[in-house]
């Protein structure tokens, strides 16, 4: 069974329909990427999975229907979401940001181990632990956003443009950590990226969205070789 199965998903912002029947599935343990131009519906797809927009269609997590549930319930089922714009609690300290995310966890010892784990991934956060999160650099805030999501110990991690606005070196570091999160912490990833080349390097599976529909899917390697994708998204 797929970890996440999305069938004929439609999404609306008020009267405007943004997704027109998107279907895809992702396997446990994998890294999947959603590609597409601005306005294709990538972010909306992620927001739909987390119950943040009005949707129609089926969304199943490990076979369990989650469409129509409250965001916090879906999150507690094991879906971490690193949103567009990072969603940092800017007036809380780094430490408090991490503790907020562990709030719903019963096993506090495991939460402490995960805290050590994210500090091992991102040592800079440990150095900034007492600092107000709003004073962090963009890269550090992105690291914090990923760490916050990891503190939920998710089965599935949704990442919305983790490279946005960051220096190439920082992006490289973050993507290196994402690979480790996937292989070591056994977290499946669903990645939305503007930088298609980067995303296809990391992912093992890719879907291409165009104006709210899936127009292509396949292994990352196949998608990367596709001439249309190369011209439209890879720029060569």
């Amino acid at each position: 069974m797929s970890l996440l199965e999305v069938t004929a998903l439609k999404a609306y912002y008020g009267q405007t329909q943004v997704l027109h029947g998107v279907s895809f599935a992702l396997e446990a343990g994998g890294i999947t990427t959603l590609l597409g131009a601005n306005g294709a519906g990538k972010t909306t797809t992620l927001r739909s999975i987390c119950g943040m927009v009005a949707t129609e269609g089926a969304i199943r997590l490990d076979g369990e229907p989650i469409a129509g549930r409250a965001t916090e319930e879906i999150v507690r089922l094991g879906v971490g979401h690193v949103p567009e714009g990072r969603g940092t609690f800017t007036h809380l300290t780094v430490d408090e940001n991490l503790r907020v995310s562990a709030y719903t966890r019963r096993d506090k010892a495991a939460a402490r181990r995960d805290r050590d784990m994210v500090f091992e991934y991102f040592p800079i956060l440990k150095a900034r632990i007492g600092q107000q999160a709003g004073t962090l650099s963009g890269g550090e805030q992105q690291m914090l956003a990923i760490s916050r999501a990891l503190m939920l110990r998710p089965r599935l991690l949704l990442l919305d443009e983790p490279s946005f606005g960051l220096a190439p070196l920082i992006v490289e570091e973050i993507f290196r950590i994402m690979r480790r999160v996937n292989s070591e912490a056994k977290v499946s990833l669903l990645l939305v990226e503007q930088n298609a080349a980067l995303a296809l390097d990391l992912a093992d599976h890719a879907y291409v969205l165009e104006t709210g529909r899936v127009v292509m899917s396949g292994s990352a390697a196949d998608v990367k070789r596709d001439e249309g994708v190369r011209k439209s998204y890879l720029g060569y």
Partner: protein
Amino acid sequence: MEQLLQQVGAGLANGAIYASLALALVMIFVSTNHINFAQGEMAMFSAYIAWQFMEWGLSFWLALPLVMALSFTTGVVIERTILRPLHGAPVLSVVVVFIGLLTIFHALAGGIWTYTIKAVPSPFPEVAFPGSGYIGSHQLGMIGVTVIVLIALFTFFRFTPLGLAMRAAAQNPASARLAGISVDWMLALGWGLAAAVGAVAGCMVAPAVYLEPNMMASILLYGFAGALVGGISSPGGAVAGGFIVGVLENLIAYLGNVVERTTGLYIVGNGEKLTVALVIVIAVLTLKPSGLFGHVTVERV
């Protein structure tokens, strides 16, 4: 000099009440961006219930925690049943609901307990203590109880996981949901806490001003002034603002009296205290809209 200190003492005592009410207003404001105009009437109603308990033979110190618990529950229930359906409604709809709540509590209190004023005995013993020439024992008690409540709240928000979750939910509801926090329940809890803090203010002020349905009307204005002076977005600032307004209104009236005595020129006196508070509100809104301790919220559009 002695009179001046007395005025400062009385100002601090009033300020404690304003601070409590300001804090109650701010607690709801930071998470919803609404000013609960019914906060004062809710506090007044709580004071009536405390009075009723005492009429039935309970001691004040037994009645107070009971009333706080009742007010807390009422606050949570009001949020869940009346305001919950209005999430995302235009501000004006919410304002109308607040005014409705204000009227309902006012009429209920008058209907149940009549509009005749009632004297409420002070729960604090009249004893002599160092400085008792400057401040009455009830006034000192008011300050003491308020400070304890404020410290308890501060500790709750600063050091408990639930307090942290509430702060997170107020600051960034979308992110709080993505952290698995039930933001709706946090709002309801905030309402409950605000109602409980208001209840303390109501119970503390009743012995000082007589209990009647209009008791909190002007006090709410002072509390609002305090919240604005300190910064409506800052709980600590609201508390400071409450004390500042309390002391300032007394000092200005005192200075007015001094001026009148020395020059015969009447500028301000006790009658203009409320006016002074409102002038403070307008001045702050004009000169420093975010208040003394508030922060400017920049919205990206």
